[in-house]
């Protein structure tokens, strides 16, 4: 939402691959997974359950573009599905507002939906303009969250494969699993920037990547704003931070001007124009 180009790109990608999506009317913040959960577990559960109940009313499953939203919704969904007492307490509040959640909704990250529901072959068919760039992947910590099963690399591997479909070459930089520092910004800015983001940027640069590819808007904000903030500490990086949906849209032949990539705080537009000129 804070980076509209991700929303635009996602809608264009869904349209091209024939995935019908419906916006959830009246939804609220997932809620964000750090402050609200630590402050009051019940509020965290009820707020999230309200969003799940809205999806249930529509008879739909819930897809998120953000890793943080994914984690909150998946975790609360798990609690509500497996803890009858928490479900009862949550519904006690929701009922005051004419709502109820019964636990029927499945929460999926867009990466999963693309990979599992649409499939690699259908996506591959849409790639008309392979992107000849070297990219580093930042999966984002919450993408490792697996409500069922233990393979925490399941979704990151999907992201890897989907990124490869765009024609991009993936470079390893050895710190893929390190957090970008977004959550710790709320506690210690210097730690977040210097002990998390900077380490990643340094390795990404050394690995020779033209850009970093992300699936999480919150991580994207940390990478983009963080590069600006690092200048205060005498460190200069200007690595383009492109969302996987934007990269897919470009590879599907969507012109960069239609994606409004100028809304990024890193030189994503310049990168896209360079690729278009190739």
């Amino acid at each position: 939402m804070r980076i509209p180009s991700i929303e635009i790109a996602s809608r264009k990608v869904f349209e091209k691959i024939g995935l019908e999506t419906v916006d959830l009317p009246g939804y609220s913040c997932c809620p964000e997974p750090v402050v609200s959960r630590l402050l009051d577990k019940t509020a965290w559960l009820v707020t999230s359950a309200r969003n799940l109940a809205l999806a249930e009313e529509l008879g739909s499953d819930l897809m998120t573009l953000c890793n943080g939203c994914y984690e909150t919704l998946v975790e609360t969904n798990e609690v509500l599905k497996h803890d009858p007492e928490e479900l009862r307490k949550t519904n006690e509040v929701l009922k005051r507002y004419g709502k109820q959640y019964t636990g029927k909704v499945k929460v999926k990250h867009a990466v999963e939906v693309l990979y599992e529901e649409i499939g690699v072959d259908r996506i591959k068919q849409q790639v008309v303009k392979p992107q000849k760039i070297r990219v580093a992947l930042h999966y984002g910590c919450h993408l490792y969250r697996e409500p069922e099963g233990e393979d925490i690399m399941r979704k990151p591997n999907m992201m890897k494969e989907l990124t490869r479909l765009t024609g991009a070459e993936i470079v390893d930089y050895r710190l893929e699993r390190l957090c970008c520092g977004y959550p710790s910004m709320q506690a210690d800015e210097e730690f977040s920037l210097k002990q998390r983001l900077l380490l990643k940027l340094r390795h990404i640069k050394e690995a020779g990547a033209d850009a970093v590819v992300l699936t999480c808007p919150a991580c994207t904000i940390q990478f983009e704003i963080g590069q600006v903030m690092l200048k205060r500490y005498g460190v200069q990086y200007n690595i383009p931070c492109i969302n996987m949906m934007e990269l897919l849209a470009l590879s599907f032949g969507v012109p960069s001007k239609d994606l409004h990539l100028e809304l990024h705080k890193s030189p994503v537009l310049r990168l896209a124009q360079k690729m278009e000129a190739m």
Partner: protein
Amino acid sequence: MVSENEITTYLRQELGEDLIKASKTRERRVSVRIKPTALRKAVNALQKQYPTLRFMTLSTVDHGLDFEFLHHFHVDGAVVTLRSVKPKEDNTLESIVDLIPAANFIEREVADLFGVKLVNHPQPQHLILTKDWPDDKRPLRRPLEGELPPQARPVAEALISTSCVAPISAFMQKKREEAGLPRTPPFAFTDEKTMEEFHGIMKDTNLAKKAGYDWKKKRLRYK
């Protein structure tokens, strides 16, 4: 000997809705949470019913956002504590000295140490601090702060007030429109009735209270 149950039943009867909660915390200990406006009414009621009532002391806790005043009384072998909580922005304590003269010194001590203003105290001068002690530096007073660290405050404030931790700026709304998107997605904040529902949930659960949110000013009570 009067039982703990008799004391709570009596106070419930006398105070009605001014009594928030009354319970026996352990043998011969009774805790009575009252509305702060009902302090004198509660003391009056105790005096009326228990002629041997003795005021023991007043303790005060600075919780960051609120002051908790605990007036302890001895009632026939039991300790009855009247608990009242006041927001620190109010910063007053209603004196009970005219009802209980023994409260004189302890009320002044609380005023000195916490910087609370006494209302209707017959001698509101400093008791333990010097006359020239600065008003803004009190030995036991904490800053007006809730549980949230500074960096987390804007997140909580935005979530409670708008249902969204990152409200969309007017600039971004315009940009969204130019890009062919609706000015905002169908978030709760786009509809008044839905926002009432969301705010209801914030009130029904403890999030707004724990964060220290002021519903009238629509912001946290502290920066």
